[in-house]
């Protein structure tokens, strides 16, 4: 009798957990019921009861498998995608907010729309390197390595990106493909003599750097990893721009501080080194008025 009561109580629990979507817990309770039935002389030959419990366990397993296999990111309606863009773009700077919105779409698996957004930003010239790298990331997550490679080849034959940017993107793509275990030889960026003088305004001892990435070791943004396009390079001096709404960041990168473990993205490869912040000035005129220009003197690579 005690067994029967316990079975009833366990079955009630199992049913409630199933109704609440706690499938694993429900299955465990049904398994306990099954154990009790098999141990109990009165019920152990009750095939109907045993089959009934087994059937419930089987359907729970089926539901669990379905959940596991569920497409993680169904295509959402444009309205919901717009909402995602709106809710997850935090910057006051319009260009930065647009980029955040596009990144959010990618995080929520809305790759087609994210690709369209990044593509638009790329064409508009907004943080082109970041947009281009995100396009490649979307292709790698959404379709295939081939799609990412084809995209790179497409840029190579177009005029949207400069040679310095293309070399940077090539290094990036090579790096992520290698990490994915994809062995491939990406086409080299062919030097265009007309661009050469524009691209190589730097010391012959140091490669052209198109972007850098580093982790902040002090200040209000300590621990943050930041990536910037290099806007100007002269020898071992590089300049980059920080948006005016990132005042915390400006406070973290004050003149005199040393930045260690900087990742430099250049045509040859990604390499690391260190530098010292040499200046931080507010731009007073032009379209970037209010933003900050930061100078870094690279002292070791």
């Amino acid at each position: 009798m005690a067994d029967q009561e316990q079975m009833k109580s366990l079955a009630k629990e199992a049913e409630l957990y199933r109704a609440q979507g706690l499938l694993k817990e429900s299955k465990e309770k049904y398994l306990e019921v099954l154990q009790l039935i098999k141990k109990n002389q009165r019920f152990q030959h009750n095939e109907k009861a045993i089959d009934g419990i087994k059937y419930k366990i089987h359907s729970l397993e089926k539901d669990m498998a379905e959940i596991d296999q569920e497409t993680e990111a169904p295509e959402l309606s444009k309205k919901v995608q717009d909402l995602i863009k709106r809710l997850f773009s935090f910057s006051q700077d319009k260009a930065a907010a647009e980029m955040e919105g596009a990144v959010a779409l990618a995080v929520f698996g809305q790759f087609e729309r994210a690709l369209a957004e990044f593509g638009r930003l790329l064409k508009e010239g907004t943080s082109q390197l970041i947009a281009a790298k995100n396009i490649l990331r979307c292709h790698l997550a959404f379709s295939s390595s081939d799609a990412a490679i084809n995209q790179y080849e497409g840029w190579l034959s177009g005029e949207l990106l400069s040679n310095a940017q293309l070399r940077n993107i090539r290094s990036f793509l090579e790096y992520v493909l290698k990490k994915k275990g994809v062995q491939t030889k990406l086409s080299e960026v062919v030097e265009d003599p007309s661009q050469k003088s524009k691209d190589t305004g730097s010391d012959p001892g140091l490669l052209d750097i198109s972007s850098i990435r580093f982790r902040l070791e002090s200040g209000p943004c300590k621990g943050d990893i930041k990536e910037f396009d290099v806007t100007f390079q002269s020898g071992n001096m590089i300049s980059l721009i920080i948006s005016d709404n990132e005042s915390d960041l400006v406070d973290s990168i004050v003149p005199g501080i040393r930045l260690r473990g900087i990742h430099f993205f250049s045509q040859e490869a990604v390499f690391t080194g260190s530098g010292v912040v040499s200046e931080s000035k507010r731009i007073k005129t032009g379209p970037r008025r209010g933003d900050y220009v930061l100078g870094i003197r690279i002292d070791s690579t």
Partner: protein
Amino acid sequence: MANFNQRERVIECKLVYYGPGRGGKTTNLQHIFKAFKKQATEEMVSINTKGDRTLFFDFLPMGLGKIRGCEVKVQLYTVPGQVKYDSTRKMVLKNVDGVVFVADSLKVRRKENVLSLVDLQQNLAEQKKSIFEIPLVLQYNKRDLAHESIPLLPVKLMEEDLNRKLKVPSFPASALKGTGVRATLQECLKLTLQHLQRELKWMR
């Protein structure tokens, strides 16, 4: 971080309902939407899977009217509880101002409560926020199931498991029946607005 428009005297803050999967976060928001329909400024948005599990987030924007001369707006979110949606949880938690942690009172979910709280602490830390400093309220949900003889964790044990170090306000609740939902939200809002007053000095 909350958005404070000093010129128009409008403050907008973000509260996130966090907790293990199937713990009742969405049910909390559904009850709030029904009970405070007048304050809801838009329809509640839910992005669920077929099995009614939260896939990305639920979103409910509300207007609380004027508090000390300032228009207060609040955006309520839930995160997906399932472990595999970690990147989504991180995204939803961005710029959060206050958190309601919805713990499941079912005995079989004891471990998941603890894991989810640890996950919250880690995801906040990634934003350089401390779980000990952010406005936080615990809710022990599904207390109504005690009447159905379903094994529940005693509140005292849940306090020991989840609130021994945090020592934040906690509320027994039944989101399904609506018990404790209002009190939980009110407390979290109170703590969040007090915190934002210290940070932004938005009250006159």
